């Protein structure tokens, strides 16, 4: 079963001279005296998978929060398909097709899995207050379409058989997959995944990786914050490295791996942060 991806189909043709889907230019965000994101610039081309890495507290999640409108930047701007989206509200940005997931799971815990995913369909459905209030047949028809789409998205991440379980009753790994299914149900053009493999078993992580690649082949674009370097090396076309809010390196996974500033940034970290430090010595995946 596959998600209906009519909206995402156009993702390959960003209408900008530089051809970028998303461009982040000189983005800054301060909290009081602390600069969490400091003049970060990078671009994402349509169909690309970009990984954002960096030690804990490097400002990765803040970067996501600013791009998706949950935080207003204190400087710089974000462009999507050439249009400035800086400072727009999160729902508007989501409405444009930029959908994110959260590092600290945000599932609607009182609802069933399928209901969670149905909310993802909000972006491309149209029933308004008026149609709903009068319970017009179109509203009911749309409900059925939404239910089908939601079940389809659940199937993609392998949660079809848990559709009617309450979200809070799922193990953490499955909740994370649920969040991804919900994001997919929104038919995004650009998907921002914040540590999608955290809490997943090795097998689940491989499956997810495969899914990401398949979706990319369909034209979906990804920005992924990831600590698991195996995944980064294997999935990412390009890697952006943040440290203390600044971009310290950008390039292919292979380039990044050899970059002395990156190595220094990671080695300077607490030695017990194994997830971040250990994979650096490993060979890139074929």
């Amino acid at each position, binding site marked *: 079963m596959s998600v209906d991806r009519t909206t995402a189909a156009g993702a390959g043709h960003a209408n900008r001279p530089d051809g970028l889907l998303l461009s982040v230019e000189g983005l800054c965000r301060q909290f009081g005296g602390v600069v969490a994101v400091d003049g970060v610039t990078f671009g994402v081309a349509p169909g690309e998978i970009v990984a954002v890495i960096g030690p804990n507290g490097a400002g990765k999640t803040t970067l996501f929060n600013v791009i998706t409108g949950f935080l207003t930047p204190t400087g710089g701007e974000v462009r999507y398909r050439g249009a400035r989206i800086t400072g727009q509200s999160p*729902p508007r940005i989501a409405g444009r097709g930029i959908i*994110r997931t959260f590092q600290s799971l*945000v599932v609607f815990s009182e609802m069933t899995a399928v*209901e969670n995913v149905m*909310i993802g369909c*909000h972006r491309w459905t149209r*029933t308004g207050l008026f149609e709903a*209030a009068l319970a017009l047949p179109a509203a009911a028809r749309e409900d059925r379409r939404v239910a089908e789409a939601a079940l389809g998205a659940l199937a993609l991440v392998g949660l079809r058989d848990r559709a*009617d379980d*309450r979200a809070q009753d799922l193990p953490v790994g499955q909740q994370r997959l649920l969040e991804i299914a919900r994001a997919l149900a929104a038919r995004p053009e650009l998907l921002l995944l914040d540590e999608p493999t955290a809490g997943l078993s090795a097998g689940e992580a491989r499956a997810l990786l495969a899914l990401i690649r398949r979706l990319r082949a369909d034209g979906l674009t990804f920005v992924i914050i990831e600590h698991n370097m195996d995944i980064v090396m294997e999935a990412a076309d390009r890697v952006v490295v943040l440290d203390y809010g600044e971009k310290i390196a950008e390039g292919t996974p292979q380039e990044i791996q050899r970059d002395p500033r990156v190595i220094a940034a990671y080695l300077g970290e607490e030695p017990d942060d194994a997830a971040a430090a250990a994979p650096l010595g490993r060979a890139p995946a074929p």
Partner: protein
Amino acid sequence: MARSGGGRSRSVTLIVLAALLAALPAAVSSAYVMTVLNIIGLYVIVTLGLILLGSSGQISLSQAAFYGLGAYASALMSKDLGWSPWATIPLAIVLVAGAAYVVGLPTLRLAEHFFVLATLGVGIIVNVLMVQLVSLTGGASGLRDIPGLEIAGVRLATDRQFYYLIWALAFAALLLARNVTSHRTGRALRAILGSEVGAAALGVEVSRYRMHVFVLGAAYAALAGALYAHYIRFISPSPFSLYASLFFLIMAVVGGLTNIWGGLLGAAAVTILDQGIRAELPRILPRVGGEYQTAIYGLLLVVIMIFFPSGIVRGALDMRRAFGRARVRAAGATETEPIQGGTA
């Protein structure tokens, strides 16, 4: 969706409810009981408005103010301008909805307890104006001789006639609220209730939905208020005070803040309890009166919020289901859980 069969059973429930409501007056001989039923009907409408708001995870303490504004607006337009109440009631609803929109613009930005605080402030300001604008509202002494309602030249005079009018509208309000909390809008509201951040990240226009239910809730209150004005034909500021807002909140909480059916149940249960304490208790214990009532309500609120935060009905069902689930599990079967509205 997964429960397409549920739709039919719900329609059956609604038809049965409508039939029962229509037949109820035949079983009632006392004019007073009819009055109580009518008041319950009005409170159901007001409480449904609160629950609409509750279904997006907010509570408001300006509901009584909107209720009062609806009453005063319709009463003044029909009394002073001589317009037909049938025109002034919808006009009052529109006016109050507009006022709610204006109030909502800055207020809905506020995070939860500041929102509560702001609605409290709005409620108090409106009540002060009702008392102070003596030349317009009659001040604390109230407005008398408000025009009654007529249908085709026949004056609605008896409680029984009003019963059908009020409950027809209450039933319509219930249907409307049920519909709004189903379908795409209902999912969006439940998402906001579950997590504002999560909802916004999926493109749910959190503030627009909040505004929708805030304005709709105010319109509900205004409808009830306008009906009240032409039914009782006397209004004064006291039934629209902060205490009244708290009273409506109790009704909503008893029924379950996110549960449309709870609006019906909460308004009925609290009004009957109210009448019981006020009218029946003194018969049994002559020395006891309304003094006990405030304390009882207060304790009721605390106990419900601690033990049944999603309302008494839901709480009781949850408990039953917990037992039921244990049995089902023992039998090796799985059970489809109904939607959980969450707590608020």
